[in-house]
C-alpha cells in the first residue's frame, strides 16, 4: 500500500485530483477541476464559495450520491470509485449522515418514523429501531414531538428531526448542505450548536456547505471554492 493510500484511508475524507463534468445538452460543463481535499477524522469543515463554484457537487461526491468524472474519492477508509450503485447505497446507509437545506422529511411519516427510516436498512428489530430513533430525537431535544408530523413542526424542529435521522445510524461522516439556509437566525444557532456538539462530544467528522459566514465560523476550518477549484 502506497503512502498516498495510507493517508487516504486514515483521513475521514480524501479527495484526490477530482474532475466533475456535467453534460448539458451538447455542452460539457466542468464543475470541479482537479480538486484535492483532505479532511482529518473529527474535523468540522465549512465549504464556502459563490453559487456555481462546485460546493454542492463536491459534497455530493463525498456523500457518495454522485460520481467523479475522474480522480478518486476516499471517505471513511473506502475508495468510492469502484463501488457499484448497490454497494454505494449500502455504504451510504452505514457511513454517511446527510443533512439537507430543506430538511427533506417524508411528509407521511411522523418524527420518530422519519428518524427510523435509515434503520429499516439494518438488521435491528422493530423495538431496537424505535428505541434508537427515540434516543436520537432525545439528543436533538425533540423527544416530546416524536409523534408529530413534519407539517406540525417549525422549520428549526424539522431540521432537528433531519439531524436526528442523519445521526441515528451513527455514521462516520456528516455532510450538510446549507443546513441553516432556510432557518431564522435563532433556529440556525440551535442547529449549529447541535452540529458542534456532535463534532466535539461524539467525534463526528462534519463537512458543511454554507453561504453564511456565521455558520462557517463555527467550523474548525473553512475552505473556499471558486470555479471548481479550492482557493483557500
Amino acid at each position, binding site marked *: 500500500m502506497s503512502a498516498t493510500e495510507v493517508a487516504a484511508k486514515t483521513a475521514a475524507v480524501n479527495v484526490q485530483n477530482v474532475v466533475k463534468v456535467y453534460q448539458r445538452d451538447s455542452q460539457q460543463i466542468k464543475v470541479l477541476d482537479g480538486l484535492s481535499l483532505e479532511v482529518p477524522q473529527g474535523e468540522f469543515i465549512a465549504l464556502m464559495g459563490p453559487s456555481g463554484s462546485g460546493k454542492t457537487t463536491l459534497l455530493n461526491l463525498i456523500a457518495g450520491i454522485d460520481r467523479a468524472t475522474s480522480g478518486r474519492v476516499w471517505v471513511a477508509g473506502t475508495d468510492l470509485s469502484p463501488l457499484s450503485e448497490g454497494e454505494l*447505497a449500502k455504504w451510504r446507509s452505514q457511513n454517511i449522515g446527510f443533512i439537507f437545506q430543506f430538511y427533506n422529511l417524508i411528509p407521511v411519516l411522523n418524527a420518530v418514523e422519519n428518524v427510523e*427510516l435509515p434503520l429499516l436498512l439494518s438488521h435491528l428489530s422493530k423495538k431496537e429501531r424505535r428505541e434508537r430513533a427515540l434516543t436520537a430525537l432525545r439528543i436533538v431535544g425533540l423527544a416530546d414531538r416524536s409523534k408529530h408530523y413534519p407539517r406540525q413542526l417549525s422549520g428549526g424542529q424539522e431540521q432537528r428531526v433531519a439531524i436526528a435521522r442523519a445521526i441515528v445510524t451513527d455514521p462516520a461522516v456528516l455532510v450538510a448542505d446549507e443546513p441553516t439556509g432556510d432557518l431564522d437566525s435563532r433556529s440556525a444557532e440551535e442547529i449549529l450548536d447541535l452540529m458542534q456538539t456532535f463534532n466535539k462530544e461524539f467525534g463526528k467528522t462534519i463537512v458543511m456547505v454554507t453561504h453564511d459566514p456565521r455558520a462557517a465560523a463555527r467550523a474548525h476550518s473553512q475552505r473556499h471554492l471558486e470555479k471548481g477549484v479550492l482557493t483557500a
Partner: protein
Amino acid sequence: MKFAPLILKHLRKNWVRTLSTVLAMSVCIFLICVLQTVLAAVNFGLHSGSTRRLVVRDYVSLANNLPISYKQKISALPGVTDSTIVTWFGGRQGDDFKNFFANLAVEPEAFLRIYPEIMLPEDQKQKWLSDLRGCIIGRKLADRMGWKVGSTFQLESFIPPYRVGKPFEFVVDGIYDTDEARYPGTNLDSMYFNFKYLYEATGERIGIGTLTVQIDDPSHAGAISKEIDEHFENSDNPTKTETEQAFRAGFISLAGNLALLLNVIGMAVAFTILLVTANTMSIAVRERQQEIAVLKTLGFSSGLVMALILSESLLLGLMGGLLGIFISRGIISVLKEVPFLGDILRGFPNLGLSPTIAAIGVGVALLLGLLAGFVPALLAYRARITESLRQV
C-alpha cells in the same frame, strides 16, 4: 414487512385517489368475475350433455317443427335405440316474467329411460305416466315456487301454435332429483309434461320441436347423425342432427358469440383500468421525486425503491381485486333474480363464483397493479439523486 407502514401511509395520504382507484379496479374485477362465471356456467352446461344422445331438429330453424312421423322413421334407423320428443313449450304464468322456468313437452316413458339423471320416486313416476295433465318439476324449481306434489298451476305459451285461447293446467305429480356425483350439471330448475297433452289440446296439429335420440355407441354419433340427415335431405323438412353437447352450444350461440363478447368486454374494462391505475401511480411517483431522492440518499438501493413502488401498486391491485370479488359474490348470488337475465341464468345450474374464477380475478388485479406500477417504478429506479434533488 418492515416497509409496509411506509407503503400504507402513502396510500392513506391520498385516500381519495387511493379509494377511487381501488373502486375502479374493483369494478373491473367484478365485471371480469361475473362475465367469467357466466361463461363457466355456460360451458359447464354444454359439457354436461350425454354423448349417447343426439338431438334432431329442423335444418332451418328451431322455430320450425318437424312432422310427427319423423319419430317413427328415425327410431327405425340402425344404431338408434330409443327416442323422445322434447318440445320447448315456452309457457309463462300470466305476465310473471320474473319466475320464468324452462318447461318442455316430452314423452314421459321414453324420456325417463333416455334421461337416467332425472330421478323420481317410483310412486311419483307411476302417477306421472298415468296422468295426462301431470308434470314433474326439479327440486330447485319446487323450492323456488313453493310447489309440492299435488300442487296445481297454469301456464300459457307465447309460441303461437301452442296458444289455445286459455292457459294449460298442470298438476305436480313428481319432484325429481339427481345424483350430482354421476350427473353433474343436471338442471333441477325445469318442468316436464306429457307431449300428448299438448298435442291433443292443440287439435293434433303441431309437430315435434326436437327429437332426442339415444344411440347404441357414442362413437357412432357422427355416422348416425349423417344418416338421419341424409334420410330427410330431400324432404320438405330436412333435419339437422348433432350431439346434445353441440346442440346446446349451438343454442347458446343463437344469442351471438357469447364468449367472444364477454371476453372483449372484460379486456376493454381491464385495459381502461390499467390506464387509470398507471396514471394514479405516475402522479404518485412524480409527486414523490424528492422523497425518492431522499430515500436513495439514506441508502435505499434503486431496486428497493422500485420494489416499494411496485408493492404500492400491487397493493392497490390486491385491494381492488378483493373488493371486486366480494362484490361479485354478492351480485352473482342475486343475478338469478334479475328479470330476463335471471331467466337465462337459471338454465345453468352451476352458476356461482368458483375459487378458480376468484383466483383469476385476484391474479388479473395483481397483474394490472404490476403493469400499472412498472413504468413509474422503473423511472424511480433510474432517477438520479442529484437531478431529483435539484428539481425540487
